[in-house]
């Protein structure tokens, strides 16, 4: 709770939280907020490529769909992708980090070497390779992103576990005969949680950017799904005339990623007392 209060006292982090909460709200209630929810799938060729106006605040696309509505509807898919990818990466990475950090031995060695190999290739390239090999599409893109992002969590948790393993209270628990699993789950994990949370928040922004790029490259979401990256790709052939078509989906990406990054920064400062002290 004190951490939350700290967070809110930092105007930058508070702004980040505000953006994220706002985006969550928009995503949950997208079909009711969007003026033309039916434009997710329907087209209106008569209204194609209209510039922004009172009726269409962000203009219309090449199929005459309301870009404002599609940006709102796209929020949901962007967040769903980001949340599922990061959750999946946590589910894979955290146990690996715990297992590798708790005991030395061949298992720990193997796990961390595998982690190193995954970290030795830029995520996007690995995701592209994996995604392509499995079968192109949004689901595979998500699986691929999760499969390439878990090493970050494994590293984070590994470092925390290593640090806590030598802590006095862990020795004390082992001394009174607590089961190692119990110590790991009830005592080590909660201590590693802030670091994981910071990682996850920053990972959200990163995943949104990467998923948008996959959509843009044509290996993520498929038409007619309202997807920001895809929309920018579709807009390219109508430049420079329909500037609004490419502009607004990109701005939406920027705003949401900005929110997560600001929040992540604030969380990191709040979680790290050393940084907190040096802020002012």
């Amino acid at each position, binding site marked *: 709770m004190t951490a939350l209060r700290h967070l809110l006292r930092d105007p930058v982090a508070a702004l980040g939280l505000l953006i994220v909460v706002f985006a969550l709200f928009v995503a949950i209630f997208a079909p009711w907020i969007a003026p033309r929810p039916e434009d997710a799938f329907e087209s209106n060729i008569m209204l194609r490529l209209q510039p922004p106006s009172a009726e269409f605040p962000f203009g219309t696309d090449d199929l005459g769909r309301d870009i404002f509505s599609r940006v709102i509807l796209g929020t949901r898919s962007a967040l769903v992708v980001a949340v599922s990818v990061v959750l999946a990466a946590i589910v894979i990475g955290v146990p690996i980090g715990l297992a590798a950090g708790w005991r030395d031995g061949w298992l720990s060695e193997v796990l961390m070497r595998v982690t190193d190999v995954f970290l030795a290739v830029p995520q996007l390239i690995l995701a592209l390779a994996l995604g*392509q090999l499995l079968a192109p599409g949004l689901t595979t893109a998500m699986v691929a992103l999760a499969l390439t992002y878990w090493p970050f969590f494994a590293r984070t948790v590994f470092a925390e576990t290593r640090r806590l393993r030598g802590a006095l209270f862990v020795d004390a628990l082992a001394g009174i005969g607590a089961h190692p699993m119990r110590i790991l789950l009830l005592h080590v994990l909660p201590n590693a949680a802030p670091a994981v949370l910071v990682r996850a928040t920053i990972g959200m922004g990163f995943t949104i950017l990467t998923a948008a790029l996959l959509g843009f490259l044509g290996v993520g979401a498929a038409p007619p799904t309202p997807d920001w*990256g895809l929309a920018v790709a579709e807009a390219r052939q109508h*430049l420079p005339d329909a500037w609004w078509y490419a502009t607004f989906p990109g701005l939406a990406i920027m705003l949401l990623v900005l929110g997560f990054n600001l929040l992540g920064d604030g969380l990191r400062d709040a979680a790290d007392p050393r940084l907190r002290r040096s802020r002012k």
Partner: protein
Amino acid sequence: MALYILRRIALSIPALLGLILLTFVLSRVVPGDPAATLAGDSATPAQIAQIRAQYGLDRPILEQAVIHVRQVLSGDLGNSIFSGRPVAEEIWQRLPATLELTFVALFLATLLGIGLGLVAALDHNGPLDHLVRLVSVGGLAIASFWLAIMLQLQFSMEWNLLPLRGRLDVALGQVPRLTGFMLVDTLAIGRFDLFLDALRHLALPAFTLALPGLATIARFTRSGVLEVLQKDYVLYARAAGYGRFRLAAIYVLRNAVTVTVTQVGLLFGALVSGAVAVEAVFDWPGLGTYAVQAILSADYKALLAVTLVIGVVYAVVNVAVDVAQAIIDPRVADQ
């Protein structure tokens, strides 16, 4: 120092071997029979069997893995399923374009990032500081493909200032491939006009690619300088009468950038991802467009080879970063 460099290179070998194995595993999880894929749609079972024997796909899996590693180490990355040509050759053709773009971007990011970070730190909590913080947070939130398009829209389409795509205006002349680096080759044949044209072509892609890195570097430099300014040796240097400029720009900065340099290594991953997007938007004939083309044509050989090559470049960059750090901070190599 030489010993340190050797040790550092030796340390990166296991990860690279692991990477080769990973590409092998990936090539075996391809849905369907790789031999059937290689043989094409109209192949008879006999042809498929022949291909299977030819590529050693009928041997035990471990033996295949050993063969794969040996092939990769000898520079044989297989043939492209799409073009039928050796993948290594195609990558060799395109690697310089990506490296040129990436290096120029890295140079821009480092130069501007360190400068902005220093300015921000010296104006701690002042207006310049806030401006730089805004740039460094915003720079990391912009999707590079979108930024690239927005810059194209403004600078190429609207104002007609900079070229829209490509590495060189073909109407101006041909450049023989000496190194593959346009900036080097144009100068080598003494065509300064072509050199300038190449620079003009580089401007937008390199800036787009540099922005996230610039943001990260500015941020780390800023906090690094702020931290170093608190050190006793800075106070001592002030007491001893060092010049203000020298103190800030050389004395403090060199300490501060030891952290920044580590970030440059980590940034390379982001740069490569960015390169895929930027190359796609600016039709840059590099590895990024090659990778995208490989995906769209289901050319898994090419894709895995790109993964491998980028992994190797990544490892080289990280060794270079560690060496640079040892040069900047003599304590690193002595540990």
